[in-house]
């Protein structure tokens, strides 16, 4: 199948599966000046799917995730999340949308001046949860990620792998429907990367939808079952199933 045929098949697949899609992208285009970061991307993602977004550097993987959590606004096209049109979300409602996502980044994005516990607890604090619930829930999540004993440590005293486990704990502590992970294993050694993916897979088993952008296809292929979306120069060029 050449590239055009592939795109056509993908669009048909999307139409057939669009009824229950949790995330829908319609002809999404994203421009940075003259550069096209995303070019007419249309895709439907079902609840509970594990989506692996791959492609070379600059393909638009991170941009695709950014437009989903509205760090960037699309230049053209529409995005629906659970039927909610992101273009119509007011700034006041944006935090509510983001609470539905758990996010993991390559550079961890942990607050250096706050302890591991405080970093993870932040997600529940912004939702206005009670301190007693926060304590219980955070300690539970830290236990499952193996970071319980480091609850009072500051992020910079931890190894890269440990920091990413804290980031994963933060991503799942609010029980989000969707996890967006942008190169979560990019700066980790093989063992740490495997550990982080194990946690994400375990959370996926509970029914969460996961979108993971990475260039590390080999590691993913050996561990992840799901759909692989390949981007190149901002275009969705191929989808395949990882078994």
């Amino acid at each position, binding site marked *: 199948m050449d590239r055009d045929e592939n795109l056509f098949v993908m669009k048909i697949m999307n139409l057939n599966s669009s009824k229950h899609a949790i995330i829908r992208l319609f002809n999404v285009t994203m421009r940075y000046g003259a550069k096209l970061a995303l070019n007419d991307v249309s895709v439907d993602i079902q609840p509970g799917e594990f989506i692996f977004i791959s492609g070379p550097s600059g393909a638009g993987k991170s941009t695709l995730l950014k437009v989903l959590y509205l760090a960037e606004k699309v230049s053209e096209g529409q995005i629906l999340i659970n039927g909610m049109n992101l273009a119509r979300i007011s700034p006041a409602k944006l935090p509510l949308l983001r609470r539905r996502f758990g996010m993991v980044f390559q550079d961890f994005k942990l607050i250096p001046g706050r302890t591991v516990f405080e970093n993870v607890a932040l997600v529940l604090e*912004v939702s206005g949860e009670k301190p007693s619930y926060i304590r219980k829930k955070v300690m539970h999540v830290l236990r499952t990620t193996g970071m319980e004993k480091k609850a009072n440590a500051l992020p910079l005293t931890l190894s890269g792998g440990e920091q990413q486990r804290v980031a994963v704990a933060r991503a799942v502590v609010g029980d989000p429907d969707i996890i967006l992970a942008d190169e979560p294993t990019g700066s980790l050694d093989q063992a740490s990367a495997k550990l982080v993916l194990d946690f994400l897979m375990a959370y996926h088993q509970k029914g969460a939808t996961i979108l993971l952008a990475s260039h590390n296809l080999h590691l993913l292929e050996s561990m992840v079952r799901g759909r692989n979306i390949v981007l190149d120069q901002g275009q969705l060029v191929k989808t395949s199933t990882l078994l």
Partner: protein
Amino acid sequence: MTRYIKKALADIRSNRFLNLITIVTISLSILVVSLFLLFFENASRVIEGWNQGGRAMIYLESAFSEEMLPDLEARIKSLGEVEEMRFISKSQALERLKNEMAGNTGFFETLKENPLPHALEIRMKTHGDLQQMTAFAKKIADLEMVESVEYGQGWLARFLKIFSLFRITGYAMCGLFLLIALFITANTVRLAFYSRRLEIEIMRLVGATEGFIKTPFYVEGLFQGFLGGILGLLILLGAFFAVSSGISQNLSAYVYLDIRFLSVKAMGILILASTFLGWFGCYLSLKQILK
């Protein structure tokens, strides 16, 4: 709210130096403002004392006789503004003068007749406003049988003009210092905001509302303003006790002085103003940053 207060206190602790500079700046501005206020409060009271609480002497014409007194008193009272009125006959006035001059009474023996006029001593109801006093004195002076009215207007008017000019300069200085404090507070918040940019970015990513992000900054601003106000007043209080007793001892023999520290109301207003200043600096800064 407890969470925000705890967060604000933690932020103040983590940015001690920056916060200390802001608190000291606010306190110095409040010190300057309260110093002016202290001066004006005391100067007003002293001037009030010099003004003898709005006393005036109405000197009557030589043709005036005591039978005309009830009529004149009624006419003066009808003008309003008079709180107290006392007639001093020419003989009483001479007696008073003799008493005041004590040992030098030989001069009075040479007098063939009493040169002093009958007079009415009055106390005006409103005596803070010189313009009002002048207008009222003119009304009395226009009455029949009234020779002249004296209330120390000459030198007092000149002094009050200078004082009023000084007061305006004082207000301008206060405004300037408050403005400086406002900009420094706003700048501190801006620096604190930039130093916590990563933290704020992460907060936004995990779904924090703007209120959740901004409230600790506002609480911090209120703390800085409040503590700055208290510190400024404490410095002034210390300086006041150190200096005021010396001034009173040295000058009370020459002039009427009644030096007191700021009233509770003035202190309350100053602390409220400095607290507002902290909040407003924060508001301006956040409005600009988050625009």
